[in-house]
């Protein structure tokens, strides 16, 4: 206790530990040059368009279709990731079986595998002659160059987020209340729905939001598999790039600002949720 008090006091008198000046210089330099100035320039450039021009650029039918594809596929992918993620996290935490550690390591593959590789492989897997496509295409399931393909790669890139947020919360879950519920006659389903799920729900929701944020911005893998057909399988980041390649900077900027606004609002939601998870853990 006493050390804690001296510690806080020492940190307030910030002259005690060295390096404040140089650290703040490095941090502000990198932060300003890489994050603050670029994002401000983007916002200013969009603001300089004026409201009517901005709307004309950001709200064209093609752009609206791209937002819809982006949002729709990302929400579906994040939901699939959350459900699958909860299940995988549950198995990793609650059940001991040979190969558990291997499964645990494999979950991180999407974090380390370049998204371009993922996109390339998924598109070759689900075409008619691919490993999986040869079974699925005859059934009428088109996994490549389709909306489903977008969802598939987005699930791939967002799955680790959904798992890794839920896993520690499941680990720290107090087993006593579960045991009490079972002793008092609740069946497994009741115990899960009324005791476990409320406790892990904020974590599941955080995982969903993180997966959604990741999916909304994803470009590398989608560009390979979606076919990028305007109005059908064109996501917002792909539209930004194609506008940029036509040197339509104003339009690209306007669409980027809409996408940025979505991401930043998600970041705010994630931060609020994470604070709630931290409070629940205490």
């Amino acid at each position, binding site marked *: 206790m006493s050390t804690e008090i001296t510690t806080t006091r020492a940190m307030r008198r910030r002259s005690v530990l060295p390096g404040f000046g140089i650290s703040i210089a490095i941090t502000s330099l990198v932060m300003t040059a890489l994050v603050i100035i670029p994002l401000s320039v983007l916002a200013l450039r969009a603001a300089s368009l004026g409201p009517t021009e901005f709307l004309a650029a950001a709200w064209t039918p093609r752009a609206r279709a791209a937002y819809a594809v982006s949002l729709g596929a990302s929400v579906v992918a994040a939901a699939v990731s959350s459900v699958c993620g909860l299940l995988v996290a549950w198995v990793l935490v609650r059940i001991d079986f040979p190969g558990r550690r291997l499964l645990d390591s494999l*979950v991180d593959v999407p974090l380390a595998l370049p998204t371009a590789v993922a996109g390339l492989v998924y598109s070759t897997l689900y075409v008619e002659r691919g490993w999986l496509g040869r079974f699925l295409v005859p059934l009428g399931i088109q996994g490549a160059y389709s909306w489903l393909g977008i969802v598939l790669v987005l699930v791939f890139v967002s799955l680790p987020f959904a798992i890794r947020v839920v896993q520690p919360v499941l680990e720290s879950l107090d087993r006593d209340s579960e045991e009490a519920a079972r002793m008092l006659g609740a069946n497994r389903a009741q115990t899960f729905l009324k005791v476990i799920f409320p406790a892990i729900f904020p974590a599941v929701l955080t995982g969903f939001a993180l997966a959604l944020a990741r999916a909304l911005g994803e*470009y590398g893998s989608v560009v390979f598999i979606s076919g990028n057909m305007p109005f059908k399988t064109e996501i917002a980041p792909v539209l930004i790039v194609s506008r940029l390649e036509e040197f339509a900077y104003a339009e690209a900027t306007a669409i980027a600002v809409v996408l940025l606004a979505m*991401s930043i609002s998600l970041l705010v939601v994630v931060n609020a949720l994470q604070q709630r998870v931290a409070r629940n853990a205490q």
Partner: protein
Amino acid sequence: MPKPTITSANPLTERLLIAVAVGIVGLLIVVPLASVFAEAFAEGPAAWWRALAHDPDTRHAIWLSLTVAPLAVAINTVFGIATAWLVSRFRFPGRSLLITLCDVPFSVSPVVAGLALVLIFGRQGLLGPTLASLGWKVIFSWPGLVLATTFVTLPLVVRELIPVMEAIGPEEELAAVSLGANGWQVFTRVTLPNIRWALLHGIVLANARAMGEFGAVYVVSGHIAGATDTMPLRVEKLFQEYRTPASMAVASVLAGLALVTLVAKFVIERQLEAEARELEAARSLPDTIDGSGTPPDAGPRTSTQASIP
């Protein structure tokens, strides 16, 4: 380790759950990963090697990736240490804003980040004309690649360091300062040994992301073969040119790198867990051992003091 208790499911349900989890990971992760290598080596290792080594543009892409990624990681390492030091050791106005800002690159689409850089450094950008008159090229050139890659990997080192430095606390550094160590000595002899595994963890993750970054780099590179194509961009270009086997060969190198990253990550995480346990054990020791008059390492400490001019 879970033991059978009243709350554990029956063996049949457990097996079913394991099967579904293995199925999910298998179908989404293992099958694609295996197929990269299967496709890359479909025509034998000789063809694989030819695709990589005998194509000058691919060779250049590999070389470019090996230059850009370390530069971005180096910037991130310096930024990560400085920011984690600030956040974990000082209280100042704007501290929580800084923590939030560190996460921003994670939630911004890489394409948007690349576009922002083009708006600043591009030919029609804010600084474009000035840079052009100086003869500097940022967009469609390697400095742009480094900037874009640094942006997308910015949170990775910092996020690893902050929790570890918060958990360790400033006591040892305060002790070093009170014994007369200067800033550099505190950093190299106290802080760095304490955070080395967490730092390495962050560097490994940042490097993997830097090698594989596609969206941000795609926008700023102008994809000029043999000039600004990194390995992931080369994968896409070969794919667009209907040279899928060659594309798969480059992809297999990236996938191999990802596997090496995961093994390194696994080893480092073991070390981190061991150190966290040690820290916990040290915390639970009674105060008398910490506060005893002669610490066992009194010798090196005095020599440290003696070396200070």
